[in-house]
């Protein structure tokens, strides 16, 4: 299984390490040349969505990436990756998101929660995280809630989390993503 990891900015190395531990082949996407390599799935990592969004447009990756995700390329987006898939950027997932929903860094937190299809007591690390205010398509399904807010969801082949599964030593969410490929 070959997974492309968007490597413009942020915590992409952490995703690569988890994916390799699960036996996936991984490559970094920084340019159009990288994008053209064959792949079974895509990971959009955490970081700053404003930076990643700008670099996606500056490098010409934005439109080809949006087209393939819309056409069904399996994609995992975490934190900033979730925001990239929202109408603020690609708009391939019909949802309303709130950026920095828990405030500044003092509002960052760690908790455990259940994620539908993944399991119970999944570690969830929220770093200046967003949450999903509402899902706007009948095809979209909420998978996890924290404090009554949606923090994980899927729509077609797109899977998003507001938290960072790549930061905790728990492989279940990535394993679930790979199993759907």
């Amino acid at each position, binding site marked *: 299984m070959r997974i492309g990891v968007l490597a413009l*900015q942020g915590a992409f190395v*952490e995703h690569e390490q988890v994916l390799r531990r699960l036996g996936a082949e991984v490559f970094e996407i920084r340019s159009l040349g990288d994008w053209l390599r064959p792949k079974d799935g895509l990971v959009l990592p955490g970081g*700053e969505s404003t930076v990643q969004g*700008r*670099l996606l447009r500056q490098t010409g990756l934005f439109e080809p990436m949006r087209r393939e995700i819309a056409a069904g390329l399996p994609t995992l987006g975490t*934190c900033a990756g979730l925001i990239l898939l929202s109408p603020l950027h690609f708009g391939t997932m019909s949802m309303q998101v709130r950026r920095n929903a828990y405030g*500044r*860094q003092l509002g960052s937190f760690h908790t455990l929660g259940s994620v539908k299809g993944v399991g119970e007591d999944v570690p969830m690390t929220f770093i200046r995280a967003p949450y999903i205010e509402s899902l706007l398509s009948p095809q979209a399904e909420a998978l996890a809630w924290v404090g009554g807010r949606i923090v994980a969801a899927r729509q077609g082949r797109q899977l998003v989390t507001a938290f960072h599964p790549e930061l905790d030593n728990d492989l279940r969410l990535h394993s679930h993503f790979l199993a759907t490929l």
Partner: protein
Amino acid sequence: MIITERMMLNRQLAQMLKGGVIMDVTTPEQARIAEQAGACAVMALERIPADIRAAGGVARMSDPAMIRGIQEAVSIPVMAKCRIGHIAEARILQAIEIDYIDESEVLSPADDVFHIDKTQFDVPFVCGARNLGEALRRIAEGATMIRTKGEPGTGDVVQAVSHMRQMQADIRRLASLREDELFEAAKQLQAPVELVRYVHENGKLPVVNFAAGGVATPADAALMMELGAEGVFVGSGIFKSGNPAKRAAAIVEAVTAWKDAKRLAELSADLGEAMVGINAQEIELLMAERGK
């Protein structure tokens, strides 16, 4: 050392900044330019290091009202500097919910012996270091991110290069030692043996390590990434140059595309006047010598 959940979250925020550029800004307008150019965070301060040098006198924490103005202007993390050892300035910055405090040698030190016990704070701290020993001492005090000191406000990258090379060489040397040699290494580095052991086992610091001090061009930023930096602070280099917005955007992309010389050539073209700069050996005040 006990790593609390809060400390972990603070280290993890630094992980999210990797591959990014943190820019010094002095006004909300500059903060917006920096954010639009792709800065992953901004450092709010009254005067950039080059002007602190020019003005002389005592440099202190910025006015909280000025910092608030910048917090309101952008959605990316906002950092601010306090003086080395100035516990009260740090508490004030925590009270206004700053995202990261830089306990910085760019300001005049408030304490010529002690750094702040950063384990007593909930907000994260980044500290400067010229070598592995300094970096590990700051991490033991609770810093959750490290940057090279470089020589701020000069536009001369030579000190940042020297500090980054020194740190990486120290790390490689530690990694090559036998287990029973780590105690002596800790003694030489003047750092806790448990942190020395971490570096020995992992071949890296336990926190993110950025380059800072004298970065002025996309090529400077790419050089620092080549030498092992995980991201770059740019202080005076942007808003002391002819076309800040264009230069800022070019440095941001250079940190991502640092291996791609063709792209770097395009990014380096037509940026206008770079900051004039002073050679690090021509200046009288060596900020990097502050706080060891």
